[in-house]
């Protein structure tokens, strides 16, 4: 085959004044603006573009469009680029894929010789012995993986997404699709027209007929004058529930690829038809192309596809291709008419080029074989909408059966006809789509609280009164009297499929899985019908009886970058965050929060708190503002303990359990006023507890008068902890007597702090030190923090982070929900059974907790390794002596700077829970060490004198 550039063609899309220089396998080539990579290479005489997956056979142009399985190339760091679709750009570095060492000398081509043994599924039947060799076999097989190369340094370039809510989305801008879009827009609908190719027009674009070109010009002008939004080089990749559409836009000016998510009121599917290859011996040889490929090459890119051609045609497109070839000076050696029952039996030649075509027993010298054997209806979007298309043998393709009413098909998918008939059907479809969209829009608007009130009644659901398109008879041409390639990307032949059916893999899905036919990058666009036909033939059944595979999304592949878009990962910070950053903080991500972990030396932070005073920013602590007369009832329901008699100014600790008795959250709640409380939750539990409380109030106790408002970040929360905390807080606080008697432990006061009104503080803390937890309005949070820092210079005030707090809470033996408890830890296991008041009427989880009281449960206990220098890794297991029997685990462990020894919390079987019990801890190193269960959870100050001070 010798392709070459023709003189300018009237329909070509080239700008011949702009030359683009690029590289192909390291060699320099030139093309024109408007060329695809493939057309530029073809014009330069290249005819081998890739090697096949299994047999490494040379492959050339087949369809010259997006779906061409032979035109996958690497462009720079972009693998698997469709050279039949990707427009040429200056400086592109294009390389062949799946070749070694080079496209023209491929050593693995030797596989062809063994082709008869490499039948479909051969690998299931071999490489089993010796078993130890399988990993080696596997590595060798993996080198046969097709496709391009990933460059792991590729940056995630700019991608973004867009939501849109058009009335009508038209998928496919051929003549029927354009007419549908125009008619819908004329009827007042907001229309989005999406075209897979680089320009609208469908098959008219590569038609050399003057009248077709006139129609195309007319349609383009009408589109330009309309309100229709047109996206080219874009694909509707999927239709999901409620007409939620994925659309990938490949030519956005700023995004590499943009994903558009459209909630279409009506979808019009007008993708046209895909030309189907014909199965015969040598059908994958370079030089065998579809009629559409021939016409595109000639009319769009001015490429002469060969010198001497055989045309196998069964339809008018094939006839038109023959005429185009003739017009541009390709010698027509023979026209073989499939409508007359004639067939092509084989394509012969050298490994890389066609030499002759055998048909009807004759051998015809030719360097080009153009095949027009029929069509595949790409019904994907209909399948995704739940339709089961049916096969019509008279037309030799599938047609829609019963799609939902908000999905309409037009164009070749719906039938055949003259251009006028197709246009008329498109227009009727557009009008129907607009009418139905109006009904949906009315309903949506009427149901939506924020929307403008609707006018009048909902429009009636328009019946489908379109004049159906006819169906042109077409011979059923799938396989000739020889075997050939069915799936070009997977190297699956008709012979493989027949063999699979005989072996029992005789349903389409089993055969597909066994042979991998239709599993490759074109996902059945070219090969599904031929696959089904081969199985039907082997079973002696019709295509309709065998059925078809399911077309799954996406319709066309899209990049992970487009799907990911601009990755939105919200992060939260407190108002004090700028101070932390300016003061050498080491942050830790906790949920979405960026939190101070420490400021360089957590042990020093602990010592400073124990001896002087420290500040920690605990803003993420969950805070719920509760107002209303029924709060005590609510608290009694949510917590395991009692809340009826909490006086104003007091705070109390509570534990929440879920309905299965498992510990859910804990925290303190304070009574700020008569009907005003503030509940705190764990930081990680804040969102979940809020939803849980709302659920109780809205569904189980809707008559209770309580308003719950999340105020977590309305306040910054600063815990001031240490022996000098009172002194420090006193220096900046107005209006509160901080003396121990006036403001004792577990009480709350409203205060003005550092000149900021509306703060409240309570005397609690996780550290075990004298603590004032100040909650200040967030807009002044940084000011309050800085005021405390300034005021405490002489007291040795310093910040401490989460790590310091974790150490101090462990010294005090406070458990952390989710760390020291797990998904099965029942309330009593925490050791807080006295806080589980089974004499209340009701509370969440009460029955399970009542039954648990009689059960022997694992317990949370404090543990100290007998060697004070051994700090077991958290999750170290507690085992029985030298056995492997698990009796518990270490849930928290740290070196205590205060005690100068290692300290732990753990969960142990009840038999080990008593103070003084010796346990064996299996360190992660494998060493077993002895440890002692303590009498109290608190390793330090078990009487709690410091915090009450």
């Amino acid at each position, binding site marked *: 085959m010798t392709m070459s550039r023709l003189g300018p063609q009237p329909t070509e899309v080239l700008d011949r004044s702009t030359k683009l220089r690029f590289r192909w396998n390291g060699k320099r080539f030139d093309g024109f603006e408007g060329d695809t990579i493939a057309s530029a290479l073809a014009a330069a005489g290249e005819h081998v573009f890739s090697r096949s997956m299994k047999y490494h056979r040379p492959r050339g142009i087949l369809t010259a469009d997006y779906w061409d399985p032979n035109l996958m190339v690497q462009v720079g760091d972009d693998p698997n680029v469709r050279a039949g679709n990707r427009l040429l750009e200056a400086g592109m570095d294009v390389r062949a894929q799946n070749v070694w060492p080079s496209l023209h000398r491929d050593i693995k081509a030797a596989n062809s010789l063994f082709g008869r043994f490499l039948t479909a599924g051969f690998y299931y039947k071999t490489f089993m012995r010796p078993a130890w060799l399988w990993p080696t076999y596997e590595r060798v097989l993996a080198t046969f993986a097709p496709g391009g190369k990933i460059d792991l340094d590729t940056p995630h370039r700019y991608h973004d997404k867009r939501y849109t809510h058009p009335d009508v989305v038209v998928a496919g801008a051929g003549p029927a699709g354009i007419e549908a879009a125009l008619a819908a827009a004329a009827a007042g609908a907001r229309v989005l027209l999406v075209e897979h190719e680089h320009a609208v027009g469908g098959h008219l674009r590569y038609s050399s007929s003057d009248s077709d070109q006139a129609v195309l010009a007319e349609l383009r002008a009408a589109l330009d004058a309309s309100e229709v939004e047109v996206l080219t080089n874009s694909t509707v990749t999927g239709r999901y529930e409620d007409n939620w559409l994925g659309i990938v836009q490949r030519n956005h000016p700023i995004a590499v690829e943009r994903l558009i998510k459209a909630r279409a009121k009506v979808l019009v599917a007008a993708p046209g038809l895909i030309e189907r290859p014909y199965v015969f011996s040598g059908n994958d040889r370079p030089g065998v192309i579809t009629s559409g490929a021939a016409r595109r090459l000639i009319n769009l890119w001015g490429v002469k596809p060969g010198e001497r051609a055989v045309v196998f045609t069964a339809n008018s497109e094939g006839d038109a291709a023959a005429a185009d070839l003739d017009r541009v000076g390709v010698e027509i050696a023979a026209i073989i008419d499939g409508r007359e029952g004639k067939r092509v039996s084989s394509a012969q030649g050298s490994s890389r080029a066609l030499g002759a075509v055998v048909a009807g027993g004759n051998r015809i010298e030719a360097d080009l074989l153009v095949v027009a054997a029929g069509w595949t209806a790409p019904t994907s979007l209909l399948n995704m909408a739940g339709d089961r298309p049916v096969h019509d043998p008279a037309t030799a393709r599938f047609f829609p059966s019963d799609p939902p009413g908000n999905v309409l098909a037009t164009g070749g998918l719906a039938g055949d006809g003259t251009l006028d008939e197709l246009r008329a059907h498109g227009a009727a479809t557009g009008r129907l789509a607009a009418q139905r969209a109006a009904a949906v829009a009315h309903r949506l608007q009427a149901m939506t609280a924020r*929307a403008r009130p609707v006018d009048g009644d909902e429009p009636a659901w328009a019946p489908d009164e379109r004049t159906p398109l006819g169906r042109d008879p077409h011979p059923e041409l799938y396989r000739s009297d020889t075997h050939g390639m069915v799936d070009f990307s997977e190297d699956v032949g008709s012979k493989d499929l027949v063999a699979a059916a005989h072996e029992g893999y005789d349903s389409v899905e089993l055969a597909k899985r066994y042979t991998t036919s239709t599993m490759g990058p074109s996902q059945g666009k070219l090969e599904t019908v031929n696959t089904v036909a081969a199985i039907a033939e082997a079973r002696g059944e019709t295509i309709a009886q065998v059925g078809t595979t399911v077309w799954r999304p996406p319709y066309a592949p899209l990049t992970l970058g487009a799907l990911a878009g601009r990755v939105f990962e919200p992060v939260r910070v407190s108002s004090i965050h700028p101070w932390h950053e300016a003061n050498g903080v080491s942050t830790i991500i906790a949920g979405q929060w960026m939190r101070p972990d420490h400021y360089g030396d957590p042990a020093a932070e602990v010592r400073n708190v124990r001896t002087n005073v420290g500040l920690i920013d605990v803003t993420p602590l969950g805070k719920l503002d509760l107002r209303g007369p029924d709060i005590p009832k609510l608290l009694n329901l949510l917590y395991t303990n009692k809340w009826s008699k909490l006086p104003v100014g007091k705070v109390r600790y509570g534990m929440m359990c879920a309905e299965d008795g498992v510990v859910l959250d804990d925290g303190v709640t304070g009574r700020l006023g008569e009907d005003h409380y503030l509940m705190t939750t764990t930081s990680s539990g804040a969102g979940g507890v809020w939803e849980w409380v709302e659920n109780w109030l809205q569904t189980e106790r809707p008559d209770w008068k309580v308003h719950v408002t999340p105020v977590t970040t309305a306040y910054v929360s600063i815990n001031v902890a240490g022996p000098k905390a009172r002194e420090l807080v006193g220096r900046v606080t107005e209006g509160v007597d901080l003396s121990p008697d006036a403001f004792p432990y577990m009480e709350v006061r409203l205060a003005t702090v550092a000149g900021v009104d509306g703060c409240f503080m309570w005397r609690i803390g996780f550290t075990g030190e004298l603590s004032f937890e100040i909650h200040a309005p967030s807009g002044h949070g940084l000011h309050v923090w800085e005021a405390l820092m300034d005021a405490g210079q002489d007291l040795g005030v310093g910040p401490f982070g989460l790590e310091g707090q974790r150490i101090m809470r462990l010294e005090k033996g406070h458990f952390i929900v989710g760390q020291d408890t797990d998904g099965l830890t029942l309330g009593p296991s925490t050791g807080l059974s006295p806080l589980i008041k089974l004499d209340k009427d009701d509370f969440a989880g009460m029955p399970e907790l009542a039954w648990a009281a009689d059960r022997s449960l694992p317990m949370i206990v404090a543990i100290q390794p007998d060697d004070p220098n051994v700090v077991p890794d958290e999750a170290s297991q507690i085992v029985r002596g030298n056995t492997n029997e698990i009796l518990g685990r270490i849930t928290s462990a740290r070196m205590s700077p205060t005690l100068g020894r290692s300290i732990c919390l753990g969960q142990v079987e009840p038999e080990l829970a008593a103070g003084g019990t010796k346990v064996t801890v299996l360190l992660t190193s494998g060493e077993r060490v002895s440890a002692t269960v303590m009498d109290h959870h608190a390793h330090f100050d078990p009487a709690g004198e410091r915090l009450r001070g």
Partner: protein
Amino acid sequence: MAESPAFESPVVRSYESSSGGPLMLTDASATTKWLVRAETGGAAADRMDAPFGSSRTAGGGAFVMGSRPGEWIVTGPADAVAEVVAGLDGVDSSEFVTALDWTHGRALFLVTGTDAPRMLEKVCSLDWSDAMTPNGAVASASVAKVTCDIARYDGDSAPTYMIFCDRSFGQYLFDALIDAGDEFGLAVGLPNG
């Protein structure tokens, strides 16, 4: 608003700002915001006079948003907001009504310009058409994965969208909005309020 010390915005990074442009993003977090809750259909609801999904302007430049069933956000100049809230004092004492100052809990950003809907459709799945989100509409939705209260309040000219989010997300959301608006020539407005 507390007079002293000054309100610190959640937006702490500095941006080149301008006083006008075709598409503007403005930080108005310092604006007073109150949250009012009452029974739907009660006397207090009547006084708020902004059913869920809608809004109204009140005297002195206050803006009342029906942000959820039985919930209203009242925003605007502090004294005007106070007046609206104070207007609830007279309702039947058996009705359960609460109000709290939410100024510090929420960031508030304004997006103004004819391209604002095109910018917002990059970060939020709501339908911004005039039929579905007319002037005065109020909704809650995820914006760049942060749940926000949104109100449309067209001034004299271009559409304006008020976007409220939890204060702690403020800096993140501000940056996400700048990113979304970049292709439309978004300018950062001078802080107001």
